[in-house]
């Protein structure tokens, strides 16, 4: 049984926001330096480096460039491309590789600089459909949101409730790129951008990096790691087909991803105390909560209303602000906050939280990965 046998031994990140002049390699190195320091270990014990390539700019052998900058010659070194699901995907691959003797201590790292560099990747056409004006990432998610609204009666105010919760939490997080709370009235007054989405349905564009150190619980004990957070479960599910081609637009393989992770952890949704749910767009978090089984399909709108996902609610979600408020980086910030909650070191610490679930997803709900964490 792998449940609890592997841990996140250290977490690190850079500042979030505009970081002019910083290369993605430099941001990766800073995040890794901080993660190693947090774990209290030297870099020489690292023998695996797994990296998600910068979303804004693909580079060949990028993982090796990061390893070189870290001064390492690892046994395992790769870029994994599962878009926004990559980081939890890589944490799972790291645990499995250690389990099978392929490596002992793994770094999982990501950095990007689209805010001060190029953000063109987020508005490009969805070929070969440029002639229809089918451009940009937000429109893909807006297409899913509209179908959800039509099938289940989900409202604008319910989408807005996700943004309000994340912004409320982010406003209390000194690291957050956007520290400005949002009321539902302010949200509803915003003009449409790509209807049914307004600006604040959409995540931030951010420079920054983050990294985690993965090793066995036993190795962490030997190294006297301060607060190793056990990985209770992980899983993946890939819807793969593009939005227009999915027979069902409002259910994704997030469901299979969570089922795999819950089974490994021996837990059910009711056992989860705090959630970090990927919120690149408001609909993403709302649908993930449904697919994870926190509520029935179609009831996500009701679930997020009335403060249910806010600090003090029945399932506090994105307690550091998520992609809508802390940083737009694709996923590792959510893992870091899940770790802090389990250590009891979060700014908005959920009292007595013993389990934390984290979701990562990417493309337009093409990819999904789930992580369940327990207490040190």
């Amino acid at each position: 049984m792998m449940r609890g046998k592997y841990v996140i031994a250290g977490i690190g990140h850079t500042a979030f926001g505009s970081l002019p002049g910083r290369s993605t390699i430099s941001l990766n190195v800073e995040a890794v330096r901080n993660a190693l320091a947090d774990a209290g270990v030297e870099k020489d014990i690292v023998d695996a480096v797994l990296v998600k390539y910068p979303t804004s700019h693909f580079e060949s052998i990028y993982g090796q460039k990061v390893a070189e900058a870290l001064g390492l010659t690892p046994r395992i070194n790769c870029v994994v491309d599962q878009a926004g699901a990559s980081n939890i995907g890589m944490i799972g691959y790291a645990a499995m590789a250690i389990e099978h003797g392929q490596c002992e201590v793994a770094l999982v790292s990501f950095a990007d600089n689209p805010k001060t560099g190029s953000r063109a990747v987020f508005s490009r056409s969805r070929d070969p459909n440029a002639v229809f004006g089918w451009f940009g990432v937000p429109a893909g998610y807006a297409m899913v949101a509209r179908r959800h609204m039509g099938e289940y009666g989900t409202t604008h105010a319910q989408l807005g409730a996700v943004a309000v919760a994340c912004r409320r939490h982010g406003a209390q997080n000194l690291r957050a790129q956007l520290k400005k709370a949002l009321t539902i009235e302010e949200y509803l007054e915003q003009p449409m951008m790509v209807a049914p989405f307004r600006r604040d349905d959409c995540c931030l564009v951010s420079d920054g990096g983050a990294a985690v150190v993965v090793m066995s619980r036993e190795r962490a004990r030997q190294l006297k790691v301060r607060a190793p957070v056990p990985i209770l479960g992980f899983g993946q599910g890939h819807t793969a087909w593009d939005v227009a081609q999915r027979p069902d637009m409002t259910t994704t393989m997030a469901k299979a991803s969570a089922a795999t992770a819950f089974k490994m952890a021996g837990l059910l949704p009711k056992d989860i105390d705090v959630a970090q749910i990927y919120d690149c767009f408001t609909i993403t978090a709302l649908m993930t909560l449904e697919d994870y089984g926190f509520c029935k399909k179609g009831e996500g709108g009701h679930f997020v209303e009335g403060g249910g996902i806010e600090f003090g609610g029945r399932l506090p979600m994105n307690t550091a602000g998520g992609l809508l408020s802390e940083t737009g980086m694709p996923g590792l910030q959510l893992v870091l906050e899940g770790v802090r909650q389990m250590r009891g070191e979060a700014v908005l610490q959920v009292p007595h939280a013993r389990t934390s679930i984290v979701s990562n997803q990417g493309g337009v709900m093409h990819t999904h990965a789930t992580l369940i964490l327990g207490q040190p």
Partner: protein
Amino acid sequence: MTDDEKAAALRPPADPLGDQFWQSLKEGRLTFQRCKHCGNAWLPVRSECPRCLEADWAWENASGAARLISWVVYHRAFHEAFADRVPYTVAVVELTEGPRMTSNIIGAGDPEALKIDQALRLVIEPDFGLFVPRFTPV
């Protein structure tokens, strides 16, 4: 941006099957592919059947009847070629024969009043140097 510049910027990438798809539209027909091996019908164009993986298929003409799966309304242009077209509607439609495709909804009045699953029919319009398959409410 001139009309020629827009057409060049938006032209689908060169592809032998894609070229046949767009040529048929020029002749007034929206076509899709049907597998001779398993009967599966699909769009967008691809060289193997995504159900049985065989490469033995034929073009078929769509009747033009479809239903609206979902739609978005662009109030901001993400490309210069659409700067003078906002607001405009992009939709996912399902042909009666089964395949789904990305398209536009035209002639709908207020696009916020559209309904999922409502009936649509095909309208082929010359635009951007192509003949573009769009849909309008029945």
